[in-house]
Each structure stands twice: as structure tokens, then as C-alpha cells.
């Protein structure tokens, strides 16, 4: 790892000075959306031969800035420059023509088309697909970057990691001058992320400018030559190559955190919480199996027991049956075998609503398309899982006042930032939606809460408060099943960690604080190796 860091800080020196004007720049740009100033009078220059890292909390305006550079949005104020000249990028094609290639935060592939077609996308409609040319270029990429893709595979059938590779390949195929990667490492394994880091360094050495956006501060330090921090749309600080080189990783991270949050955010985070597990078993799952199909993996023969006050983590690479397990427990997915017990009561046949009333709660990982109805006001969203129940409904008739009051309480208790409870929930930021959903799951008599990736996509500050809440819940004596792809999170919070792979539990390990060794053991199980020292309570 230190090798690549060394590369990173070297490349700058031998570039001709005229290049210092910057291949692309933004000057005093401002972009407003209803109710928010997404980007606020930002000026930045991106240079050839540099990996320029953009950092900032959720909603800081990073993607909006990217949008302006890639022609998706035009600034309300300010302007862009290309090679020092004022320029306008009115459409994505204008941006592509200017030599700017972007890998967006959210996948921009067409899942029903083949890899080749996705790589050709945007070519004039009357031309024939340039298969031979693309195949030849892919060969080159394969040699240069070890990027290898099945050209005739349908994209939707590939893994998310492979899909991200397609997007990177697409950006590389266009002989671009600027490459923008917006959270391009989010779906990659640590290994993949490192490869990408090395690839970026390779690219800047060949004369490109790379703009790299990430939430992982260590990555920023390791792969970046220059770091800019955005805060609430405005530029909060910049760290040049010399400055960066002079700092250690820890120092740099501290500095970034200070710039981003204005305080030492990292320190207060829940470090290996103390177990609050009690003896009574609140949730027991035995031999649970679900039907799989082409799109979703089935869960096979999962058994698990959860004690009051205990947090059991579920680790695994995304898509190995975790979501299906959670859904099966919540009653959302039919079982083909096995049974579920809640505090000794068999709830295998209970419906979602019945389970909820008995105290089994499930916080989905898909806040927007599953957890909330974005067009409905916050107030209605807080009671979506209690439709028809008193006190919000009396004999089926809505009590709007009661609901509004309930929503206002929840907003206050979970400090949801919103104009009022009538605001459509889709208008809130991801973190605030998450707070509403959390509040919804925890209201009333909860006994067991299943969290599915509760901090996914949140910024450091929000991650921290969310983790604190989860830990508090366990302390109150609830059982918590915590599904996450983030091993650090699991190791910080869980009493035990179950590892899922291929729809099965490969093993359950005690979180004994053994650090790297445990991490390695879990990693092996995630890759499908059976763990024989299963620890069951």
C-alpha cells in the first residue's frame, strides 16, 4: 500500500509548467435546487497529471459539481474553463467532446444491453456497431490495466463490481483528457479499490487529469495528489500535493475531518461496544430456506438465535442472501422450509403486520423504493406500517391530527431536518429519510430489530449517530440483527458475527476483539470457506 502512496506523490514534479493552468476549471460556480444551494460559489482547477480528490459529507455538492463538468447541469452562476478558455458544457455530449469522461455515482449502464452495446452507446444510430474496433481497444486495455470484460454478456447479468468495471472501461475507451470517478470504489472490494487506485496513478502518469470522489478518507490520502473539501456546497479547504506529502495518513485524515465537519468527528465513534447480551433468547430461526430465482439468491437452511440485548452481525459480500434472510424474517418473503420463533412463540405463519405488532421490526436497506413513499408527506410515512391501527385510525377513518402529532414527535426525537411534517418525504436528504424510518421502526413495543445496511450511503456524522442508536437499542434489551457489508461496522457493534455466502451461513464467530485475525477468518468465510469452529450460544 505504501508503494502506491509513493507513486502518488511523485508524479507531479516533472510536468511542464504551462500545464499548471489546468485542463479544466470551475470559476465561482453556483447551482441551486428547490430549497438548497447545492454548489455555492466554488472555484477549482483540475490539472493534468493529478488525481484530484473531492471530499465532503452527503449532500455537500460533489455530484452536482460533477454534473456541471459532465454537461448534465449548467451552473446558475459562474462559468467553466477548458484549457484556460471560458467554455460552456450544455450537454453530456459537449462534455464528452471536450474530452471529459465520467463514471457517475449511480450506474449509468443499460442493464438489458450487452457489454459491447453499452460501450458503443451514444454512437450515431445509422452506423454499424464498431465491434472490431472496440474489441481491439479492449485488448489494449486488458494489457494495460488488466481489464477484461465479456463483450457479449448482458450487463444486467453481471455483478455490480463487473458493471463498475464496464463504466471505467467505457471512460478509458474514449481517449479522454479528464476522467471523473464519482464514488467509483463504493462497490468494489478493498482489493478492487486498490487496483483502481493504482490504475488512476497509471493514468495521470500518461497525462490525464483524474477527479476522484470518495467517502473513504484513507483512499483519498493514498490515491490522491490533491484534496479539495466541500461543505454545504462551498469550498471548505484544499490540500495541495506538497502539503499532503508532508503529512502522515493519520494527520491528513484528521485535517480532512476537521475541514469536513468542523470538529474531530472520528474520535467519538462507537469503538467495540461492550456487550449487553442477556440470557433470554428473543428470536430463533431454524432451518430457514427460501426460493431463489434468476435474480435473487435463495436462502438455504439458515439457523440462528438472538438473545435479548445482543447484536448479531451478518457479514457477507452483497447479494449472498442477506436481504432475503431479513425479508424472510420480516414475513415479506415466503419460506419453503424452516420456522421462526419470537420470544418462544412460533411466528412462521404470521404476516408482516402480525410480526410487527408482536415486536419484530425490519429496517430495509432500500429507503427510497421500499421504505418510503416519496410523494406522501412525512406524517403519512411515519404510520405506513400501522395503517388502520388506533390511535391513528378509528374504525378505519383517519385521524389526521393524531398522525401529525405523532410525526412531529418523531421529527423532534430523531432530529429530522425538515420544514414540517407535511413535506413529501422524497424531498428529504437520504440521512433524514433514514431517521424517519428508524423512528418508525422503533416506535411502539419493539422486541427485535433487523437492520439491513443502516448506514449505507451516509456520511461520517450520520453513520456515527446511527451506530450510537443501534447500540442504545441493544442496551435497552432489544435483540438486534445487523446486516452490513462494512466489516468495521460489524466488528465495532456486534457480539457475534454470522457470515453468509451463497445463501447459507458459513459460520458464526464471537466478536472477541481479536482484530486482524478475526477479520481474516471472516474474510475466508465470505469467500465460501466453511468455518468449523461454529460458536452457538
Amino acid at each position: 500500500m505504501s508503494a502506491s502512496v509513493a507513486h502518488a506523490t511523485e508524479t507531479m514534479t516533472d510536468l511542464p509548467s504551462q500545464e499548471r493552468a489546468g485542463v479544466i476549471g470551475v470559476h465561482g460556480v453556483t447551482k441551486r435546487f428547490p430549497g438548497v444551494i447545492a454548489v455555492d460559489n466554488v472555484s477549482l482547477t483540475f490539472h493534468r497529471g493529478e488525481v484530484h480528490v473531492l471530499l465532503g459529507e452527503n449532500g455537500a455538492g460533489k455530484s452536482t459539481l460533477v454534473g456541471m463538468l459532465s454537461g448534465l447541469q449548467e451552473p446558475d452562476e459562474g462559468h467553466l474553463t477548458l484549457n484556460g478558455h471560458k467554455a460552456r458544457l450544455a450537454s453530456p455530449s459537449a462534455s464528452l467532446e471536450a474530452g471529459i469522461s465520467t463514471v457517475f455515482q449511480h450506474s449509468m449502464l443499460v442493464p438489458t444491453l450487452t457489454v459491447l452495446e453499452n460501450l458503443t452507446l451514444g454512437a450515431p444510430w445509422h452506423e454499424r456497431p464498431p465491434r472490431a474496433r472496440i474489441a481491439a481497444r479492449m485488448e489494449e486495455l486488458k494489457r494495460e490495466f488488466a481489464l477484461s470484460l465479456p463483450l457479449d454478456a448482458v450487463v444486467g447479468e453481471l455483478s455490480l463490481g463487473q458493471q463498475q468495471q464496464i463504466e471505467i472501461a467505457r471512460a478509458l475507451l474514449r481517449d479522454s483528457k479528464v476522467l471523473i470517478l464519482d464514488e467509483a470504489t463504493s462497490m468494489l472490494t478493498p482489493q478492487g479499490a486498490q487496483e483502481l487506485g493504482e490504475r488512476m496513478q497509471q493514468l495521470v502518469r500518461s497525462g490525464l487529469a483524474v477527479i476522484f470522489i470518495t467517502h473513504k478518507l484513507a483512499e483519498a490520502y493514498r490515491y490522491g495528489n490533491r484534496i479539495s473539501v466541500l461543505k454545504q456546497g462551498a469550498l471548505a479547504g484544499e490540500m495541495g500535493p506538497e502539503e499532503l506529502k508532508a503529512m502522515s495518513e493519520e494527520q491528513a485524515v484528521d485535517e480532512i475531518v476537521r475541514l469536513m465537519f468542523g470538529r474531530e468527528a472520528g474520535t467519538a465513534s462507537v469503538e467495540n461496544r461492550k456487550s449487553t447480551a442477556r440470557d433470554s433468547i428473543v428470536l430463533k430461526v431454524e432451518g430457514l430456506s427460501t426460493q431463489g430465482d434468476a435474480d435473487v439468491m435463495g436462502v438455504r437452511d439458515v439457523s440462528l438465535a438472538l438473545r435479548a440485548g445482543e447484536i448479531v452481525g451478518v457479514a457477507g459480500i452483497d447479494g449472498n442472501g442477506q436481504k432475503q434472510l431479513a425479508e424472510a424474517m420480516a414475513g415479506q418473503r415466503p419460506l419453503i422450509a424452516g420456522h421462526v420463533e419470537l420470544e418462544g412463540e412460533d411466528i412462521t405463519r404470521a404476516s408482516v403486520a402480525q410480526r410487527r405488532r408482536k415486536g419484530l421490526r425490519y429496517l430495509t436497506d432500500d429507503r427510497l423504493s421500499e421504505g418510503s413513499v416519496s410523494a406522501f408527506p412525512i406524517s403519512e410515512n411515519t404510520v405506513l406500517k400501522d395503517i388502520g391501527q388506533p390511535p391513528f385510525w378509528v374504525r378505519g377513518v383517519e385521524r389526521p391530527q393524531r398522525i401529525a402529532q405523532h410525526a412531529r414527535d418523531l421529527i423532534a426525537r430523531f432530529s429530522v431536518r425538515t420544514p414540517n411534517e407535511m413535506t413529501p418525504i422524497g424531498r428529504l436528504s437520504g440521512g433524514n429519510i433514514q431517521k424517519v424510518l428508524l423512528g418508525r421502526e422503533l416506535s411502539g413495543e419493539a422486541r427485535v430489530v433487523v437492520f439491513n445496511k443502516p448506514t449505507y450511503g451516509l456520511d461520517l456524522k450520520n453513520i456515527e449517530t446511527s451506530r450510537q442508536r443501534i447500540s442504545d437499542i441493544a442496551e435497552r434489551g432489544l435483540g438486534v440483527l445487523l446486516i452490513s457489508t462494512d466489516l468495521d461496522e460489524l466488528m465495532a457493534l456486534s457480539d457475534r458475527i454470522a457470515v453468509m455466502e451463497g445463501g447459507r451461513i458459513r459460520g458464526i464467530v464471537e466478536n472477541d476483539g481479536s482484530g486482524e485475525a478475526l477479520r481474516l477468518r471472516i474474510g475466508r468465510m465470505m469467500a465460501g470457506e466453511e468455518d468449523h469452529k461454529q460458536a452457538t450460544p
Partner: protein
Amino acid sequence: MSSLLTEAFLSSLFTGAIVAAIPMLLAGLGEQMSEKAGVLNIGIEGMMLMGAYMGFLVAFSTDSLWLGFLGGIFGGVLTAVVMAVLCVRLGLNQIVIGIGLTLGVEGLTALLHHFQFSRTYPRLPAPVRLDIPGLTDLPVIGPSLFGRHPIVYLALLAVLVLALLYRRTNLGMTLRAAGERPAALDVAGGNVLGIRVVAVLFTGAMAGLGGAYLANIGAGLFIPFMTGGAGFIGIVLAMLARGRPLWVLIGSLIFGAALSLTTALQVAGSNIPTDVIQMLPFAAVMLVLVIFGRRAKLPAALGAAYERGAR
């Protein structure tokens, strides 16, 4: 039943199937392109009717069937322009505007017909037919398949041309991207609204041609409301054809055959009440929907307006 399988029965079946299939084929091919590109073009019925009216008007006033077809295409495109502006460029609801357009064109053409033709009912001369020597003389299928107006062969050729275009050029891929993930096409440098507008206009052109066929070849004159749901059948054909022109052809032939079977059964003197026979084509479509409906995979962004950068 064996006595039904006479030459008379079969030739009326084949003849009727082809005659009935052509307008639906044209409409279905047109609709297919819109649907691929993510626009559910419910206004196609109106486009057909406008095509029928304009097609007849031009053919009648210029004495040229071919100019008439051009007129039909123009009429269809004219209607499609409204749809393209309102639904593609401005993002208004496609179903409501589609229904509105259809109603509007029904009213408008009936009104114009009333003031122009309703006292005289002018008709066009019988269309020339392209007799293919030898083939036309074949028993049963000869006169039905061959010896039709050239536009029939053009419609069949359109199936081939479209299939090739979709397969051999970037067109198919671009359309599918616009229908599946318009944002992906946009950021790749494609022109989402452009391709959608083109698709909607193409639908208008094909529907207009289909309408002109109905008026000029099918009837020899324009009658208000004469399309009678052919456009809606086109929508169903396009939805079931999963993006393949050949399937639209097969579907339209099946539907045409079902329509024609109602005639053929009657001509053959079947004793089933005609009211019951006439439900056949629609019952056939429902049956197909019940059996295959699930497989009618529609584009993910079908019906959704695209606005760059919206979220």
C-alpha cells in the same frame, strides 16, 4: 367441419387475413418503435385516423394514390408532432395526451368530413394491383397473397428493413437505451429526446400510412371513425412482440386471420350466431394475453418522461 375446408373458405380466409392485417401491421411496427424508445403512444389511433383523412384528401384532390399515401404519412406525422412536443419535449402524461389526441382527431376529421364530403361521398378509383405473373395464378393462396396493391409488399418489406436496422445498426440499441435507461443514453452522448421524437414521428408516419391504406385501398373513401380501434390493436401487437418486427407481422396476420375467419366461417355457412363469431378476434387476443402476457416484457422507462438531471 371438413366441408368447411373448401377452396372458397380458404381463399376468403387468406385474402381477408392479408387485407385486414396490413393496417394493423403498419400501426404495430410504428408503435413498436415508440415503445422501444419509452413512449407509450396511445395517440396512435388518432394518428391513423388523421392519416386516413389526409391520405384520402390528398389522393382525391391529386388523383394519385401514391401522393395520397404521402399525404397519409404527413397527416400521421402532423398528429405525432403534437404528441412529440407535449409528451417528449414537455413531459406531459402520455396516456392522457394520447387519449386526448385520439378524441380530438376523431372530432376534427368528422367535422371536416361533414363540411367537405358528407354531401357527395366522393370515392377513389379502384387501386391498381401488382400481378406477379405465375404466382398470382396459384390456387387459393395465389390471388390472396399475390396480386395486391404494391403498398402491401412495401409494408412487408418494412418488416425486413426495420428488423435489419434494429439488428445491424446502432438504432435498435439506441432506442432500447432510451426506453430502458434514458439517463444512461444521455450521459453517453446520445440524444434521448431526439431519438424519442424520431420514434414518435415514425409511429405517426407508419400509423398515417396505415390509415391511408384503410381509406384509399381499404375503403376508397374516408368515413368518420373509420379506424374503429385498429390503432389500439397496433398497441397490443407492439406490446406482445417484444421489440421484434417479425413478431408484429406474425401477430397482425394472426389477428387478421381471426377477423377474416369470422367472415370465412359465415361465408362457409357455419351455423354459429354471427355475434358469437365476431368476438373471436378479441377473444384470441385475450387468450394470447393470458398465456403470454407475462412475457410481454416492457421497457423499464416506458411511459416516463425524461428530464435531464431530475431526481
